[in-house]
């Protein structure tokens, strides 16, 4: 009798073993390899040499002159980090500015229509990223749809250079990540009790004040979720800045790729990947902290 629970426990471990092995080997194993590689020396052409070195981590922020050995801040790297963070933040803001009215619109449709609108929002999401990115390129390039239309209308005489600028990257990322903002916002607004707006107006709140003091604080969890869902992949974006930014406007994703490719510095690439992971963890921690404060016990 007393053996039954014990054997069931052992069976439990046995049954969950495939999942555990998969988690350890497939998910955390590669991460461990990346962490180890970041502390090794780069190989001559690619790969690593099994010699411990903190050089990769040092080189993320600092630059050592090859002739006199003086140390200075790695301006080139810092500008790539800064551009990544800046473009990701702006993308988050733009997707929020477009996403909030969109989510509001969908949430206020009759129940039957909502599924259709949500479907329309998510269709691009199920389409290949590369194809969508090239489609945007087709629209904004100098002889593309936008410039041709503007020139035919006589609004401009020379095509506007949008492709291969930060603007192009922003347009691309906004388009790609908008659904990730709209969906959590929709979920939050869908739960929102619209009678609270009437209560706000009734208590002398103007439209703007009701938005700021009633609506935004209540849908805040949705806003934070949307911002993190957009900011995180934006920060690591690779295809969009590569295709629309033209290679010279790099973001962290492209910089990492460079280290594993032409740069032939795997440890640096590994260290950069971990930095990216770390920033995401920081963002998630902030989210957890804020949402915990929202629900005091």
């Amino acid at each position: 009798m007393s053996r039954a629970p014990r054997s069931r426990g052992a069976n439990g471990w046995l049954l969950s073993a495939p999942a555990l092995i998969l988690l350890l080997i497939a998910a955390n194993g590669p991460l461990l390899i990346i962490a180890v590689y970041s502390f090794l020396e780069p190989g001559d052409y690619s790969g690593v040499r099994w010699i411990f070195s903190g050089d990769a981590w040092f080189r993320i922020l600092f630059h050592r002159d090859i002739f006199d050995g003086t140390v200075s801040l790695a301006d080139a790297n810092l500008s790539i980090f800064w551009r990544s963070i800046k473009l990701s933040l702006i993308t988050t803001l733009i997707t929020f500015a477009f996403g909030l009215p969109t989510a509001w619109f969908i949430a206020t449709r009759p129940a039957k229509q909502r599924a259709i609108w949500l479907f329309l929002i998510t269709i691009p999401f199920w389409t290949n990223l590369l194809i969508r990115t090239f489609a945007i390129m087709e629209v904004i390039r100098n002889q593309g749809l936008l410039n041709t239309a503007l020139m035919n209308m006589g609004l401009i005489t020379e095509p506007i250079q949008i492709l291969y600028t930060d603007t192009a990257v922003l347009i691309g990322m906004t388009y790609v990540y908008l659904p990730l903002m709209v969906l959590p916002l929709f979920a939050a607004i869908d739960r929102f009790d619209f009678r609270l707006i009437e209560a706000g107006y009734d208590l002398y709140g103007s439209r703007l004040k009701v938005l700021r003091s009633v609506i935004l604080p209540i849908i805040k969890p949705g806003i934070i979720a949307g911002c993190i869902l957009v900011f995180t992949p934006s920060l690591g974006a690779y295809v969009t800045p590569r295709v629309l930014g033209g290679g010279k406007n790099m973001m962290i994703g492209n910089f990492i790729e460079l280290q594993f490719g032409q740069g032939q510095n795997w440890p640096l690439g590994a260290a950069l990947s971990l930095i990216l992971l770390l920033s995401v963890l920081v963002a998630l921690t902030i989210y957890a902290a804020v949402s915990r404060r929202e629900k005091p016990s």
Partner: protein
Amino acid sequence: MDHEFAVEARHTIKTFGRGASAVNALDDVSIGIRKGEFFTLLGPSGCGKTTLLRCVAGFETPTSGTILLSGQDITSTPPNQRRVNTVFQSYALFPHLTVAGNVGFGLQMLGKSKLEVNETVARVLALVQLEDLADRLPAQLSGGQQQRVALARALAPAPEVLLLDEPLSALDLKLRKAMQIELKRLQTETGITFVFVTHDQEEALTMSDRIGVMSGGKLLQVGTPRDIYDRPVNRFVADFIGETNFLPAKVVPGGVCLKTGDVLSVPTGDRAGEVAVAVRPEQIGLTSAGGGTLDATVVEATYFGTDTHVHLQLSDGSLLVARVPSAQAIQPAKGDVLGLRLDTSAMQVLAP
């Protein structure tokens, strides 16, 4: 200039929908609610009482007609610029704000100083006996407490008129009775005009200075609870407020003639032809057969403690209910033939 009316509606019409499916939620309603009055809009659901309240609050704009607040036309004034506050049926408390935050919301929106907000919030919370719960969130309160917060929140900015949209409907009977007394006390203490919407006729009778009875978007009768109970203008009002027996009759010289052939000498006013005579169950007394105005057979007698409800059948087959004190000499039993003493001065002759 001092206006007699705190709220006035003139020929207010509100139509929902268009074309063939259009419905008049308010059908030419004119009403004047006096300053400092506890006024109740009473009617069944869908009668337009809430629509009228929402027109006063500013959440609905009348299709035509005018709404006045202290003599000023506010028909197209947005709700946040009307010195009117609402206690919502669902309470609509802000879930992200504490009790104090909710109560102080209106004052903050009005741009009052922090000191003034805090003082008023403390005073109003004391008024509704919630001082100890100032830092709680709405989700941590019981239904009755949420109700008080909603009330305090609407009272805090000291509006000219307080609108209450069936605020007690979600409470259980005992709490509802307590809140009825509480509301009446608050109204007397603050002197604010209360416009109370309910479908509960008992609630309306016990709390109100005056009642407006509505049905089908029309205002049928306005008067004190006693007026409305004793002198209903039509069959609907008589039936909706309290219990009433309706006896079909015909106007004859000097009174009305029932289907049984008995003639009752009641004032008929200018009515003629077919009418309905309204008799309240408590206005019927029982006596021995032949001793009253007319005779009836007891169908059933139900004992209710102090009262006994006696179901009676007249000789023409029509049924009526009498409510008599259980302690009286005559103990009606099924099948008994009894005489009915009718207080003809209290009976109403209404359109059939």
